[in-house]
């Protein structure tokens, strides 16, 4: 049945490059000898460790408790002994305090890990509590604490939950395989989410380049009147929150606002599946699907990896690296973060590990802007990246603010299309951060 494809204005068409892994079934990765559990894997306040060095821990046991409201606990992904609590390199950049655990190889589960009640018997507050206790965060990469998303202030009326199965980042196939192989979990997850905020309208949105996933999820959602599976045009950044909301509901999140200001909560399909799993088994978020791919890895795979597994272990299980490695990226090629070491661990927001050979980096010298307007046409927000970059380079903060630099979602479409190879988003990101810092200062004063 041909479906009407939903989409947004602007955007780009980078090569999908998903062929290497989209046909590969999920496989469980080896349990590592050592896991590194950073105490901050989410947006918000970091966790305090709740275990001590030398202490025995079990699989699924909480090892870090968040200090503030905006946070999510972290759990041990193995059973074993705490070897150290120290600063370790973090895939998001910098050094972050982490609980390092030596595995005993037994995977003895924690006594708190037991199936919850059936969804029908759970109340909204109980579901939110499960979200929190399971340490759920947005698994598409941004890692915003899920329970916080589901606790909007009382004056914000939420009427729609959208599951993001767009997976518009090139190369990545983890959501694709999840929707294909665990479609029931995805549907159960959105049902629980809809119940948590008492809404009647749910969308599961998937890009058209994954027809098998659309079919599988549609099948799994059969009989669920309130859940609509919709096909999206394959275009980047289709999976960006604001663009997704526009495509599904026709609504726009007000400039400077949050999705809840338009009555919507958006979650990644992986988060929904993790919630379903937490209800069914009681197991918190201790593993996730990671697409390991790119020209620089010998055997690309879709692996189910324990949180905290060092990149090096994952690489080894994928046949190792090719020669002339240029970049190892946490996440996808458009918004992922380049790593300087493979000692960093897989965290809750690790959707992929992209390893590119040097020849595929497309590094080239920037040349003057010729005002071709490709960035203006590509910007999904309707900004003028060429102008903003000029302001950024000259430090013209006031002008950049007037041209809405703060609305930039940092999707990188402008840098991608630029024929002069200018690092547009990189510079806009900097002036955007300056403006936000300045506003904060003004507020305090």
């Amino acid at each position, binding site marked *: 049945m041909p479906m009407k494809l939903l989409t947004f*204005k602007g955007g*780009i068409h*980078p090569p999908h490059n998903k062929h290497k892994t989209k046909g590969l079934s999920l496989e469980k990765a080896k349990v590592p000898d050592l896991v590194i559990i950073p105490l901050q894997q989410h947006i918000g306040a970091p966790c305090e460790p709740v275990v001590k060095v030398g202490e025995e821990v079990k699989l699924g046991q909480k090892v870090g408790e968040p200090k503030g409201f905006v946070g999510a606990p972290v759990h041990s992904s193995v059973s074993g002994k705490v070897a150290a609590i120290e600063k370790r390199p973090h895939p998001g950049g910098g050094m972050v305090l982490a609980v390092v655990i030596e595995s005993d190889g037994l995977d003895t589960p924690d006594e708190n890990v037991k199936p919850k009640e059936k969804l029908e018997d759970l109340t909204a507050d109980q579901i939110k509590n499960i979200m929190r206790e399971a340490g759920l965060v947005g698994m598409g990469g941004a890692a915003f604490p899920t329970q916080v998303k589901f606790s909007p202030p009382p004056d914000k009326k939420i009427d729609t939950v959208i599951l993001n199965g767009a997976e518009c980042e090139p190369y990545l196939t983890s959501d694709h395989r999840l929707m294909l192989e665990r479609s029931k979990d995805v549907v159960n997850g959105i049902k629980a989410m809809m119940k948590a905020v008492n809404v009647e309208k749910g969308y599961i949105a998937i890009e058209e380049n994954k027809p098998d996933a659309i079919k599988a999820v549609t099948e799994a959602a059969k009989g669920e009147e309130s859940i609509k599976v919709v096909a999206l045009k394959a275009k980047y950044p289709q999976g960006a929150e*604001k663009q997704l909301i526009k495509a599904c509901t026709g609504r*726009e*999140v*007000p*400039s*400077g606002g949050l999705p809840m200001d338009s009555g919507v909560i958006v979650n990644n399909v992986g988060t929904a599946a993790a919630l379903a799993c937490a209800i069914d088994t009681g197991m918190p978020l201790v593993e996730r699907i990671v697409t390991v791919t790119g020209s620089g890895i010998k055997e690309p795979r879709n692996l189910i990896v324990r949180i905290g597994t060092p990149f090096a272990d994952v690489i080894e299980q994928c046949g190792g690296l090719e*020669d002339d*490695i*240029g*970049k*190892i990226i946490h996440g996808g*090629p*458009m*918004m*992922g973060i*380049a*790593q*300087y*070491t*493979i000692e960093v661990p897989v965290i809750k927001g690790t959707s992929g590990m*992209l390893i590119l050979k*040097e020849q*595929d*980096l*497309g*590094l*080239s010298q920037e*040349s*003057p*802007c*010729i*005002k*071709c*307007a*490709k960035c*203006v*046409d590509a*910007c*999904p*927000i*309707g*900004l*003028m990246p*060429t*102008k903003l970059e000029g302001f950024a380079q000259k430090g013209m903060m006031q002008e950049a603010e007037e041209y*809405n630099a703060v*609305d930039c979602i940092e999707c*990188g479409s402008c*840098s*991608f*299309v630029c*024929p*002069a*190879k200018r*690092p547009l*988003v*990189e510079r806009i990101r900097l002036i955007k951060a300056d403006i936000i810092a300045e506003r904060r200062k003004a507020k305090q004063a």
Partner: protein
Amino acid sequence: MGYGNLVVSSSPHIRSEETVQRIMLDVIIALLPATAASVYFFGMRALAITLVSIAAAVAAEAAIQKIRKKPVTVSDGSAVITGLLLALTLSPAMPLWMVAVGAVAAIGIGKQVYGGLGSNPFNPALVGRAFLVVTFPVHMTTWINPVDGVSSATPLGLLKMEGTATGYMELFIGNVGGSLGETSALLLILGGMYLLYRGIIDWRIPAFYLGTVAVMTLVLGADPIFHLLAGGLMLGAFFMATDMVTTPVTRTGKIVFSTGAGVLVAVIRLYGGYPEGVLFSILLMNTFTPIIDKYTRPKIYGEVKQS
């Protein structure tokens, strides 16, 4: 395995294959049919003018960059386009040394004086042509007929001075008096189609430029088809009003720019002292480009209504 050399740079980690050089190459390719036609109609003189103009433009760019101790960037192809475009606006009777002077002026005062590629407010080829019009007015208005090679006026000149109209078919094919490249509407449209297909130019510019000229001339009682086909309008519509550097970047801005240029062409042709208005219509609108961009900013996602 060498993790020592990992590149750590900001996202995105992939780039499109499009380059400035490729864009310039596409523009050159698009101009080739019209250039070849000029050689066919006007003979080797046309070829000589084209080559001298390109060579002088490239040499001027390299020399100025050398003097300013800047990297020499002639390989980007932009100076080649300036030279080629200038040549296409010149009369086949133009002495070669004057051609060279025009090309040097185009690059020098049209482009490099502002800092080079991307910084110039005016279309460099048109600056070169304007320079020649005021410096060598006689040579810039002496035209020859491609059929017999004797001097004759352009179709627009004939209409303005003697009230004689030239047939549509002759204008369309290009077998008429005029500058090297502005004679054959057919081949210029062909080149323009190629640029549209390659995504180099925005359809809005030729559509609104040509559309406005047609509507204006019709309303003012002139022959719109004649005015569309005659003179430098096609060359201007597809290759000069579409110059990326000197025209607006917003979609609405492109419409404003080309509509304004269209109005100017009609007014100059019908009421002005010059038979042709394309040159000044584009140069004049170039001056408005920054302000057009400023007032035609796209609507941003989630924009709050100003109250």
